[in-house]
């Protein structure tokens, strides 16, 4: 599967689409279209951010694969096909979750067309696709025992599909409410895994960076450029003492950056979790014809975008090279 690159600019279009969808979907269940609009906006924004979150995790795993190949060269530590398969399995699971999140966004968009006969078919097809993806997700054994959560998602989607086909808007809204709750519970249960994936990635990359620095295998030119740039001069660092001085500073910077990367993901995960909870609560209120708490601001998802954006430009198009399957290079000196 290929994961669509993060595209924040599409969010506004999705938001408008979702507002129309929920206004339509909840019109019989909601006294104020403002509540429906607020729930719709959050549904769309949360689904999109969830896609971005999983896309970033996918890149983390792709990079982990590459880092293990670097270790083969740097340390002579074997990285065989079985080890590669373990990471590929985890990556496949993350991609399934990204696909579900993306389909949820598309479903919201397609619901806008519910009023037209052709469009109703589109919405139904989109819901059916989402149902298939959730079933695929439920069939996997990966990640902490998610069966009860998958059952909730499957049941909710079945109800949504039937309701759309029968044009029962209130039932569709209630199905969406159950789905949102199931998604929230699934994410919450898997948070320790998501955080661990990022932690191990940061640990390997920072450890390799420090090794490269201490072995003198990095170019300090960029560090000194700031002093020479105003005078159109280019550094040529040959003094070992300067290289050592640079390496000491850079090692500290690696440590600080590693801590920041971990904190950034923890903040993103926390925001994602809060937004999923709030989205589920809001959709539930609207679906059950209850008023929302006035003026409750939606949880900001800026932390998710901040963390995920660090991985947008480095996503490999495909899984990296067939890794070295045996320990090569540095068979010790």
């Amino acid at each position: 599967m290929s994961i669509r690159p993060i595209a924040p600019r599409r969010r506004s279009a999705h938001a408008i689409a979702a507002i129309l969808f929920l206004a339509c979907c909840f019109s019989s269940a909601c006294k104020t279209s403002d509540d429906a609009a607020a729930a719709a906006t959050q549904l769309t924004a949360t689904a999109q951010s969830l896609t971005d979150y999983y896309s970033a995790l996918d890149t983390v795993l792709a990079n982990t694969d590459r880092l293990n190949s670097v270790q083969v060269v740097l340390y002579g530590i074997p990285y065989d096909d079985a080890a590669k398969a373990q990471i590929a399995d985890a990556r496949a699971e993350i991609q399934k979750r990204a696909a579900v999140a993306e389909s949820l966004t598309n479903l919201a968009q397609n619901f806008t067309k519910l009023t037209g006969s052709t469009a109703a078919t589109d919405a139904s097809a989109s819901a059916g696709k989402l149902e298939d993806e959730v079933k695929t997700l439920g069939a996997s054994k990966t990640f902490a025992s998610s069966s009860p959560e998958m059952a909730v998602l499957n049941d909710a989607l079945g109800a949504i599909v039937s309701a759309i086909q029968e044009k029962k808007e209130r039932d569709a809204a209630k199905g969406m409410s159950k789905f949102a709750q199931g998604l929230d519970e699934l994410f919450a249960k898997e948070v320790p895994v998501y955080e661990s994936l990022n932690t191990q990635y940061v640990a390997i990359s920072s450890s390799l960076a420090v090794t490269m620095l201490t072995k003198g295998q990095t170019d300090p030119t960029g560090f000194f450029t700031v002093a020479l740039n105003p005078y159109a001069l280019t550094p040529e660092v040959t003094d070992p003492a300067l290289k050592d001085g640079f390496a000491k500073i850079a090692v500290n910077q690696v440590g600080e950056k590693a801590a920041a990367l971990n904190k950034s993901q923890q903040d993103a995960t926390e925001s994602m979790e809060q937004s999923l909870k709030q989205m589920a609560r809001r959709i539930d209120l609207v679906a059950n014809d209850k008023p929302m708490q006035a003026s409750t601001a939606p949880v900001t998802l800026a932390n998710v975008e901040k963390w995920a954006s660090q991985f947008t430009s480095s996503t490999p198009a495909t899984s990296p090279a067939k890794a070295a399957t045996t320990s090569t290079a540095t068979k010790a000196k």
Partner: protein
Amino acid sequence: MQSSLSELEETYITLQAKIGVLLAACQTQDQRDALSAQYVAARTAYWSCINKAFHDDDPTVVALTNQLDASNKQLQTYVTELGEINTTIANITQVVTIGAQLAAKVIP
């Protein structure tokens, strides 16, 4: 109780953080191979745990997790203080073996 995943993660990451120093301390290829094998075993156990679910209420898992928790604290000392390399590798092997036993309790 400590989480099984977090304990296996700690074993793996502790070794990861020091693997360069540990390998540099090895004097023979046999030592390097033994150390690499333990690193690979720790990595395998970690990814097995990621990719499967645990019987968290299984008493054996609880016991192994607690045992690994205590061993991880020792592992930090082993790799930081870095005594005689053969002893260090033997100590690492003990910790990684507990991790492998824990990972073996993964639901098939």
